[in-house]
């Protein structure tokens, strides 16, 4: 395609609608319009001009607003499908098979189909990610294709435009004017904070041009945001781990080598409905107990530089912190969040060694479940020897050996041998909560459960997100772009005195025509210029009356 030469002598790239220099319409379609299409200043959208190779075709595909909107709508529809049933993330079932069964069991055949189509994990499916990626490509290409020519034409715009350009603006007026109208209007426009340029017999007054960059700035923000999201896929950029820690325990922090966290205390408080909280009385009656707060008194430790894992005797305390919902512990780019808890896990149990017949006690022993001792000696010389400890007793194996299902003391079982001065040869007994087994016959003594102490387990989540600054930057740029593009507008007023003394007045804005009209009227009135009329309004009026039909576009 060849460059288009305008009558004024300016060379325009192929595809241009309005001459970049004088504003004459260049295409047949444009000439037929009653009002000029000012969307991109009539400049050529780059993509439309070359349509040869595959690369150009792909480029044009993504450059199209229609395709952009189609992608937005596709994401919108896909995202809504994902909310019909809860996503895999939010259901109790774990593991592929269990998840599949869950959908089929709970939601019937609809659930089965939903799962079969992969909608149970829609947002991490490759096609959904691909859609988002396509949106990103569309954002970049469409912005480049429109932003660059728009920038060029606004930067190079001339003060004097051809009459046909001015006539085809929405606000236009022509007629006689006062002798020094141009000077007076320049003054008036400057008063209204317009940037005024004069050239021979014409004026171009402009304000808020920066608002035209709004869309490109906000698209840039979105692109930066999407880049941030993509970087999270790289190893090390995003850490997401969980940690359960009991009161009094210390744990290596997963994902944060060299750091350890100890829980000194965990606490849950609920709303009492009394005093200050009386106002919640009725709601609490309705809902039962409502948790007010839960928090972990944590101590953060660090090993000295170069110290390998395993050794915990050289820890240095970094800080103490109360981890609460909405108040994570922060260190070295990591955040530790309070997420969950389990209450009342057994921590120690106290038994009395009693004579089964008389009920007489020979003393008490307390077993610390996190550190049981081999031998417990009582005051009068009796001993209780611990032979086996099964924190989560789950029955006996074939060889009679007691089994434990987990290392958590849900159902502690103890195999003990009790020796008293009366029974020096010792008696063997197996004790679980509310049950005692005496494998070698009737014993004289037994361990009677006295009391237990419990502790709470705090569920924490450790996260580190290196991409956050990028995401924040993207968000800020997006907001700046949206604000500048939507809360400001680009207003231009052209005034030109023709050789015969007639003065032409034209006005254009990208939005808020009412405000421009006000300013335009004020200028024409003060300076004695011919008033400008709203040509679109007139066209509509005529259309309504059925006289004429215009293609207003």
């Amino acid at each position, binding site marked *: 395609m060849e460059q288009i030469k305008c009558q004024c002598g300016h060379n325009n790239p192929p595809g241009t609608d309005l001459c970049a220099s004088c504003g004459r319409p260049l295409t047949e379609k444009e000439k037929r319009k009653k009002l000029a299409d000012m969307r991109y200043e009539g400049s050529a959208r780059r993509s439309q001009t070359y349509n040869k190779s595959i690369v150009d075709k792909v480029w044009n595909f993504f450059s199209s*607003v229609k395709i952009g909107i189609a992608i937005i*709508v596709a994401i919108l529809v896909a995202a*809504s499908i994902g*909310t019909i049933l*809860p*996503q895999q993330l939010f259901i109790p079932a774990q593991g592929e098979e269990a998840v599949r069964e869950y959908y089929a069991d709970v939601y019937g055949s609809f659930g089965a189909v939903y799962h079969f189509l992969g909608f149970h994990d829609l947002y991490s499916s490759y096609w959904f990610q691909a859609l988002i990626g396509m949106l990103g490509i569309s954002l970049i290409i469409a912005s480049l294709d429109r932003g660059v020519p728009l920038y060029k034409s606004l930067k190079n715009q001339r003060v004097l435009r051809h009459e046909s350009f001015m006539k085809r603006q929405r606000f236009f007026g022509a007629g006689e004017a006062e002798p020094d109208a141009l000077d007076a209007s320049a003054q008036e426009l400057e008063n209204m904070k317009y940037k005024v340029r004069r050239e021979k017999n014409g004026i171009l007054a402009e304000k808020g041009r920066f608002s035209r960059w709004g869309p490109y700035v906000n698209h840039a923000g979105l692109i930066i945001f999407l880049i941030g999201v993509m970087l999270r896929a790289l190893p090390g950029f995003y850490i997401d781990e969980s940690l359960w820690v009991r009161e009094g325990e210390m744990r290596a922090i997963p994902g944060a080598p060299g750091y350890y966290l100890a829980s000194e205390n965990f606490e849950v408080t609920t709303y009492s409905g009394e005093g200050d909280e009386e106002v919640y009385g009725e709601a609490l009656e309705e809902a039962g107990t409502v*948790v007010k707060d839960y928090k972990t008194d944590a101590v953060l430790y660090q090993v000295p530089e170069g110290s390998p894992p395993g050794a915990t005797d050289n820890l240095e305390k970094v800080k103490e912190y109360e981890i609460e919902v*909405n108040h994570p512990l922060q260190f070295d780019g990591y955040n530790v969040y309070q997420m969950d808890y389990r209450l009342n896990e057994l921590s120690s149990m106290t038994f009395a060694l009693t004579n089964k017949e008389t009920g007489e006690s020979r003393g008490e022993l307390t077993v610390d479940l996190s550190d049981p001792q081999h031998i417990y000696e009582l005051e009068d010389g009796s001993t209780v020897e611990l032979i086996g400890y099964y924190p989560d007793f789950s029955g006996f194996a074939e060889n009679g050996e007691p089994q434990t299902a987990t290392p958590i003391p849900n159902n502690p079982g103890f195999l003990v041998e009790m020796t008293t001065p009366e029974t020096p040869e010792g008696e063997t007994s197996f004790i679980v909560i509310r049950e005692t087994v005496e494998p070698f016959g009737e014993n004289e003594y037994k361990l009677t459960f006295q009391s237990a102490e419990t502790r709470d387990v705090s569920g924490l989540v450790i996260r580190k997100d290196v991409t956050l600054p990028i995401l924040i930057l993207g968000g800020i740029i997006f907001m700046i772009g949206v604000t500048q593009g939507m809360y400001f507008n680009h207003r231009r007023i052209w005034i030109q005195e023709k050789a015969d003394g007639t003065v032409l007045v034209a006005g254009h804005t990208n939005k808020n025509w009412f405000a421009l009209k006000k300013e335009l009227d004020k200028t024409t009135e003060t300076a004695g210029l011919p008033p400008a009329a709203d040509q679109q309004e007139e066209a509509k009026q005529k259309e309504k009356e059925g006289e004429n039909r215009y293609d207003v576009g």
Partner: protein
Amino acid sequence: MTLVEWSSNLLLTAFFAYLAGTLLFGGAVRGNKEGSFASESRWGRIAITVTVIGFLANLGYFFTRWAASGHIPLSNMFEFTAAFGMMLVGGFILIYFIYRTPALGMVVLPVALLVIAYASMFPRDISPLIPALQSYWLPIHVSTVVIAEGILAISAGAGLIYLLKNVDMKKKSKQRLWLEILMYALFLVLGFVVANSYFMLTDYEAAFDYVDKEGEAASVVYDMPPLFGMNEGVALDESTMEPIFEVPAFINGSKLTAVAWSVIVGTILYGLVRLVFRRRVAEMLQPLVRNTNSQLMDEVGYRSVIIGFPVFSLGALIFAMIWAQEAWGRFWGWDPKEVWALITWLFYAAYLHLRLGKGWQGEKSAWLAVGGFAIIMFNLVAVNLIIAGLHSYA
């Protein structure tokens, strides 16, 4: 009076002021039958004064309730929905002072009334905040969202007026059908309010034991006669009526019952109106908007979106992400409510691109604005009540 009583009385005051405002705006529009704008502006002035008084009372409700509960009253379904109704009026007042559009008041105020009435159907007790909600981000995030949705909804109001004026009621068309469906949908909300109020006033209650979708035993109290029974539901009281249908475990029979009653009552009301007036509802409203300026309505609709979209982006996405990052360590978790906020945002992004890039103005734009309101309402009603997630209020 205690603060709580003050607060409910102020809300009631606001409600009646909006009711009066609706009629006065109607009067302003009707007064303009012969194009006498003098009468329109006189009535309009009275109407907007009443509306502003109502709005001040509404703000009074909001802040007295805030003082009484110790946290911003945006923490449950009633509070959030009532605030949405309030911001609908706030957005209208803002637009009114820019464009002087009484017709908009005539449409927006009844919708706000309906929204506030709908809100009042939910438990109005002042509820304590669960730990996750105890953050200064609660007022920042939720109030920005409510303001944004209020402004965005104005565009739907303007769009509705545009459609009422421009859709040809004499000819059979898709547009005419959809407009009437829209009217019918408003009747369904009214149906919910009427049905619920009736059963509330008559103290209806029926308790059931049932088996939930995880196979656990659970119980539920119906406050409307059970049309749909819960999975393996057993009535605790023998005098309770037998549910007509039993639903599978993953459907909540009591909520479905509420929906069914709303449809029944709403349809009856709609049918009565049609029978009495023998005209479509949209057709009946058309004379009221005859003298409005279509182009102005188009502009109002567009400007509401332009003002509302950045506020929505800030509140529903950016503030939401910051808070989520702070509370849970992930700024985005694909929680249904989050997803629907994204959908709303994408929808308005599409609206702007269609309008700016494809020249969708006038009627197409008006339909889109109404669609946006439908999505906002879906997010408010369906996502809160049916698709439960982190934001589940009720």
